[in-house]
């Protein structure tokens, strides 16, 4: 088991290198460091000295991928790619273009993100599975039919509609909770209620329908027929047999998301003014800050790979037949 985990973590290294190369190429294929400097210093009337100074301060005064003037291994290490990518593997993210420490920012912003994403995830999972099981229990009746129609209608509505509509109805018309903003500590509750509820409702349609499909697929199997044949009530069949066996497909989709909960949600964080990583990323995208986007991409990839690993480990936990070696 430990050997398997270690091997998987080693496999992650080439993938992370690939991610870095890809994002780096994408950024610098058309953009030059000079250009970046000019964007940040303002496009007009920038002296070459100012550009050189900016590049030196932010570490962009080296060749991109290959340094022909340096000697030995320096040919590869004294480049922008090397100096910007390698510290990432030690989670040293460096400074943003405005001079702030990215690592520190990420640490402080992780909590609000998690405070929003974790409840959405947990409540959502509970609600969707309950709803889907109800639909599966009443399959091929009007309850099921109405439920599926509801799901299809709900998944056809833009997520932005739930956010804008919810903010309008709850905060503006009824004045129940503040429209946006955030406070640390227990006061965060009143700011988080609405985004959490909206987040859960927003995913109801597609997720419930997906779980319902999984349950129905399981219910057509032989062991379910056997369970019914030996006289078990439908309730027990559903909860003790179907739900457990449906865990594998459910875990495949669910566990991989858990680590990325830290990354927060781009849209709802910025709509509700929550100072998490999602709104941080959006701000970075809007101000074209390569350092932050690069750091977030790296972090996202690491968390995704951890999620894949966790998924595999969780299989052994729900299915004794699965052995990792």
């Amino acid at each position, binding site marked *: 088991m430990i050997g398997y985990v270690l091997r998987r973590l080693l496999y992650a290294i*080439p*993938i992370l290198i*690939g*991610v870095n190369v*890809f*994002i780096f190429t*994408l*950024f610098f*294929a*058309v*953009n030059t460091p000079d*250009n970046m400097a000019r*964007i940040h210093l303002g496009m007009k009337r920038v002296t070459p000295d100012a550009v050189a100074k900016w590049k030196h301060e932010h570490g962009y005064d080296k060749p991109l991928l290959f340094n022909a003037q340096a000697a030995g291994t320096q040919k590869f290490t004294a480049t922008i790619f090397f100096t910007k990518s390698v510290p990432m593997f030690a989670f040293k993210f460096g400074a943003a273009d405005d001079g702030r420490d990215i690592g520190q920012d990420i640490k402080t912003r992780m909590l609000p993100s998690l405070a929003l994403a974790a409840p959405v995830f947990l409540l959502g999972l509970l609600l969707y599975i309950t709803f889907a099981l109800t639909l599966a229990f009443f399959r091929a009746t009007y309850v099921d039919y109405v439920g599926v129609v509801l799901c*299809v*209608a709900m*998944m*056809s*509505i*833009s*997520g*932005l*509609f739930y956010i*804008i509509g919810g903010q*309008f109805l709850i905060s*503006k018309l009824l004045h129940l909770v503040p429209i946006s903003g955030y406070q640390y500590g227990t006061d965060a509750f009143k700011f988080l209620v609405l985004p959490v509820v909206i987040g859960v409702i927003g995913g109801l349609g597609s997720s419930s329908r997906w779980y319902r499909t999984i349950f129905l*697929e399981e219910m057509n199997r032989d062991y379910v027929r056997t369970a019914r044949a030996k006289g078990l009530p439908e309730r027990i069949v559903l909860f003790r047999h179907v739900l457990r066996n449906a865990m594998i497909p459910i875990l495949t989709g669910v566990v991989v998301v858990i680590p*990325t909960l830290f*990354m927060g949600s*781009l*849209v709802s964080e910025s709509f509700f003014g929550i100072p998490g990583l999602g709104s941080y*990323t*959006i701000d970075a*995208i*809007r101000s*074209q800050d390569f350092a932050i*986007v690069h750091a*977030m*991409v790296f972090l*996202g*990839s690491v968390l*995704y*790979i951890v999620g894949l690993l966790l998924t595999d480990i969780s299989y052994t936990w729900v299915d004794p037949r699965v052995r990792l070696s």
Partner: protein
Amino acid sequence: MMPQFTPLWTDWLIYALLLIIAVYIAYTRSKPHLLAPWRKVMRSPTAIASSVILLVFVTIGLLDSIHFREALPQQNNGEKTVYSAEIISLFDRMATPLRNHVEKTYSAPLAVNLFAMESVEQPDGRVARLFPRLKYAGSHLGKDIEHSTRDQWRLFIKGSLWGAVIWVLLCLVLNAALASHARIDFSQMARRLWRGDTELPWRTLLLTIGMVLWLSAIAWQIAPRYHLFGTDKVGLDVLYLALKSIRTGLIIGILTTLVMLPFALLFGIMAGYFKGWVDDVIQYIYTVLNSIPSVLLIAAAVLMLQVYMDLNKDSFNSVVERADVRLLFLCLILGVTSWTGLCRLLRAETLKLREFDYVQAAHALGASHWKIMTRHIVPNVMHIVLITITLEFSSLVLAEAVLAYVGVGVDPSMNSWGNMINSARLELAREPMVWWPLAAAFVFMFVLVLAANLFADAVRDAFDPRVQ
């Protein structure tokens, strides 16, 4: 004078897509085993209803994809024809009144006055605060403006009557055609149709067409004379904006999957077929792409395009062409982020298929790898491709709105529901609030996505062997 035909990049791709569809239809027509699932799709009432709606959207999108520049009126004879610098589409031409009736600023749906008060100088020199008359809405009434509501009701009834007449004619023609085809009485056929007792759901088809005819006849009567959905901040007709956005939505939904399809097919099948190091390399590529958060990847790519466009301003002749290149690029990058899912499905299916007896037999008979892949594997994975395309469509249309909000969507000058929502979302905070641009964008998006979802479900039910 003939206008000058100036297709954009995305237009060419749409024409190519039409060609592919035409070839597919021609190929499928003579193959009963390929037609069978489509027959099953057509027997489903929801599929028929949603495909009527989709067809309406597609028609508008296609009309909006024929771009040209109009010839300017000639000054004196003998000179070369001069063309307008503005690129417009056939749809723009048909919706000329909607396009040209630009008011000053916001006006509510069907209003004849502006939404905001203004100081207007009266003929006698005094300045009064009032809601000024709109320049175009209700202008045909002249002084009779108090009766605008009555006029709108008149137009509504006129439109409804027109819609009803056309619909009844259509029903009669269809009934006659069906009756002669089934060799039964006209009235007998009508009774069957009424009860819904036909193999294909003709009743649903007629009802949906009736709804569409009714709504479009009303719009056709009212829209040129009033602003049916009001006007936006700069006075543009919201109905026109929403209709123009259809093309953007369709292109993002369809072209994205189209551009990713060759890669997903080639890589997915190669990985599953050859296994070994080919599989390893391909899996590596898609794990790398998958592990980058997709919004960030799209954002980074679009930002780079922005920089590129700022550096090469001269290579684009007009705003329309610029926006079009950005749209195409957005489709490409969305394709890059979404092909991995299909690729993985195809790889898994190919892994299964390659062990089947008929593939082994083909191999033993000396068929080349290429031939086995194209002849024996590709046709047997096409149902996965089709199901994925239809399922992906609606999520892409919805994703466009989110990307526009993040600031990495289509060009801000391009009409899209995402841009409409993005520019209108602060208007709810106004007092009194402006709700119609948002509502129009959400309603249009909802109708398209709902129709696409229902259609995709029917396609999956008909094509997925696991469901049968």
